[in-house]
């Protein structure tokens, strides 16, 4: 079955430190990949997405993600984390010919002052 894995349930980093959140998807042709952020008590906001082309994509709030087909990964990165980045991060994948996202289980980010 098609699936998305976010191996890290919780991650804690200090403010100003770099961040990498991992996402792996099950093999499938032409994946469309997304990262969303959910702040406490809020809905989901799109950070960035990858469809094709340059495998390094830039998003909002200083985030970027790199698509690596050989590793079936789409990891999210930020060079310097701010306290306001504390939130839940969700990776999602959709496949050509389907009509739905498959979400990972999320990674909760805690930022230490």
């Amino acid at each position: 079955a098609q699936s998305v894995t976010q191996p890290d349930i919780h991650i804690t980093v200090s403010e100003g430190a770099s961040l990498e959140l991992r996402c792996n998807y099950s093999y499938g042709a032409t994946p469309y990949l997304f990262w969303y952020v959910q702040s406490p008590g809020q809905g989901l906001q799109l950070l960035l997405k990858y469809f094709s082309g340059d495998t390094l994509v830039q998003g909002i709030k200083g985030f970027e993600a790199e698509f690596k087909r050989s590793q079936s990964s789409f990891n999210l990165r930020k060079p310097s984390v701010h306290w306001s980045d504390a939130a839940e991060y969700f990776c999602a994948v959709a496949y050509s010919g389907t009509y739905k996202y498959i979400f990972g289980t999320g990674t909760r980010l805690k930022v230490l002052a």
Partner: protein
Amino acid sequence: DTAVSQTPKYLVTQMGNDKSIKCEQNLGHDTMYWYKQDSKKFLKIMFSYNNKELIINETVPNRFSPKSPDKAHLNLHINSLELGDSAVYFCASSQGAGGAGETQYFGPGTRLLVL
């Protein structure tokens, strides 16, 4: 301006009751979705509608009935509520026909608690 709005934001009710959650989008999108987020934060698609027609119906109990009076609205009616229905329900919309590559825009969620 709110792009995707949901009412109510919180809903506390007794087992066995019937309740509805409303969703409206002012983005002019053609497709709308309902998701359920459980206590472990797992998000799963329930339904999607494109121009008032059902295109996704996951294995959801038939106590859940979506209704789309027009393409800007997708309401979720739940009959005979059960404890396991307690969750956060998110509405979302996308511009096209609901294809894989479309960006979905989410509402703020409705937190349902069944006692």
